């Protein structure tokens, strides 16, 4: 199948287009946050604590008198940075480890046993422990979420490498005396691109979700930073009084994760016709 038709296939359904629009909206929120927000998201104004929506405060204010709307706008920055950071780290490590395991049989069992071990530890708990010991900051949160994702990428890349290894064009390249590095980079790794695009989308969504969970539990981004998880954590004590403090950021967070997952599904269907036939 030629490339343009894959793109057309990807863009063919209206839910996918809606999902792309929503993700684009979040990106716009993050990039233009200073212009879109109506107030400094950290500005405390005790005079307007826990007020409902008004022209001054579109979604009302939290327990410290901070503007909820502006905090939600700025929260998109944290979520996108965490998503992108986790994606970059887990793909970089996962591809290198997976390629090594899939190509060099001697390294395979060592690398995969270590990956099995990491995968047996519940991801949220491992991330919580990593943040708890190294202190909460954007960087520790990104690393803490990325570590449990690495084995998933490694497994995926390894399994593709193993299945491609037996292909005639790879055998031919090896027989012709092509150096291993070139066989890997030119002939084998390109096969991982399409599955990694799909997996990468899911990793991004999962990173946004786990960041929110960590911040919600008090083991994530420092509490004063407006991240969606923090905003919800701040609002939970007042939930029965003002449900919007939890529900508004919750809706934005859920929609973001939902639309990224939808894009992942659409990418999978477009890039893998065999799977698409099933779904």
């Amino acid at each position, binding site marked *: 199948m030629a490339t343009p038709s894959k793109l057309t296939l990807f863009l063919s359904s209206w*839910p996918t287009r809606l999902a792309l629009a929503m993700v684009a909206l979040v990106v716009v929120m993050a990039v233009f946050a200073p212009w879109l927000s109506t107030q400094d998201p950290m500005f405390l104004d005790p005079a307007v604590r826990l007020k409902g929506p008004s022209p001054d405060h579109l979604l009302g204010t939290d327990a410290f008198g901070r503007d909820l709307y502006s905090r939600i706008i700025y929260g998109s920055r944290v979520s996108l940075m965490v998503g992108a950071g986790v994606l970059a780290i887990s793909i970089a490590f996962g591809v290198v480890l997976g390629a090594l395991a899939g190509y060099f049989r001697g390294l395979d069992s060592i690398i995969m*046993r*270590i990956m*099995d*071990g*990491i*995968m*047996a*530890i*519940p*991801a*949220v*708990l*491992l991330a*919580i*422990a*990593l943040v*708890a*010991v*190294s*202190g909460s900051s954007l960087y520790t949160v990104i690393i803490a979420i990325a570590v449990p994702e690495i084995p998933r990428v490694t497994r995926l890349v390894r399994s593709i490498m193993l299945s491609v290894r037996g292909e005639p064009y790879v055998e031919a390249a090896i027989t012709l005396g092509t150096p291993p590095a070139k066989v890997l980079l030119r002939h084998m790794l390109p096969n991982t691109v399409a599955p990694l695009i799909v997996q990468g989308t899911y990793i991004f*969504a999962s990173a946004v*979700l786990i960041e*929110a*969970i960590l911040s*919600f*539990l*008090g*083991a994530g981004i420092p509490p004063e930073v407006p991240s969606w998880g923090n905003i*919800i954590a701040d609002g*939970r004590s007042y*939930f*029965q009084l003002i*449900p919007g403090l*939890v*529900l508004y950021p*919750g*809706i934005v*967070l*859920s929609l973001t*994760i*939902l639309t990224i*997952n*939808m894009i992942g*599904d659409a990418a999978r269907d477009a890039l893998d016709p065999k799977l698409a036939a*099933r*779904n």
Partner: protein
Amino acid sequence: MLLIILKRLAATVPVLLVVAVVIFSVLRLTPGDPAAIVAGDGATVQQIEEIRRHMGLDQPIPVQFFKWIGDVLQGDFGTSLISNLPVKDMILDRMGPTIAITLYTVLYTVIISIPVGIISAWRRGKAVDKVVTAGSVLGFSVPVFITAYVLIFIFSMALGWLPVQGYRPLSEGLWPHIKHLILPVASLGTIYIALVTRFVRSSIIDTLGEDYIRTARAKGLNERSVLIHHALGNAAVPILTIIGITITMLIGGVVVTESVFNIPGLGRLVVEAILAKDFTIIQALIVLFSVVDIVINLIIDILYKVFDPRIDS
């Protein structure tokens, strides 16, 4: 058979070892001195030194590692840095609610996911299937705590049918016990139902394409019998596997759910330990949850070797 089980058991040893090394290194080798964290901001150098000796942190790293492993193998998880109680007792004390939530969630998931997944696969491409497919993407995209707050908003605050939070053990009566667990299990279950339904659906679609299904239909069996005996029977192994794989995710969800609903289980203990920087408890609970995960997957592996002899070791 026994040989297969023994082989599978032996294969978990390296995994357990890696788990132990990872957990140990995370808590001992990352920057940040546990003794200083426990001592607090105002502590003097002598106090920190005292705590370090008390925690055994002045010993060489390998010595600390093997001492810890030895203790854990004997069921000794150490003493809580904050409460000074044995961690083992604190865990035993908090296990009940967590076991209840997990068990009910798995049951609820199986009861909903299997029929819904089968119907969705059978009616593939029809309206029912589209609703189920869209619903499952939605189900695993919404974070547990958001689902939980929405459910609290509807059923506790607006309708007043169910308690907002809290927990009652079974010994205080069946209805109070269930009443307090309906919302937690419903919130946590949403994600797993979404994941498992999606998986049941695609497994059944796979088996429905097989030759023996065509044979079964050709010899005139009714659809119900084809779906239940032939399709579900053969999709059972992958379905069981996905339930095993999602157990780790379920554990993460339990931590959040217990925190939202203020349920005094192991998940809340984790959160309390993080806030109090009690590393002995964090370490013990991660080991415990990882071992539970490994054991459950081990049992599932052995089970389907029993049920499906075609799978070789």
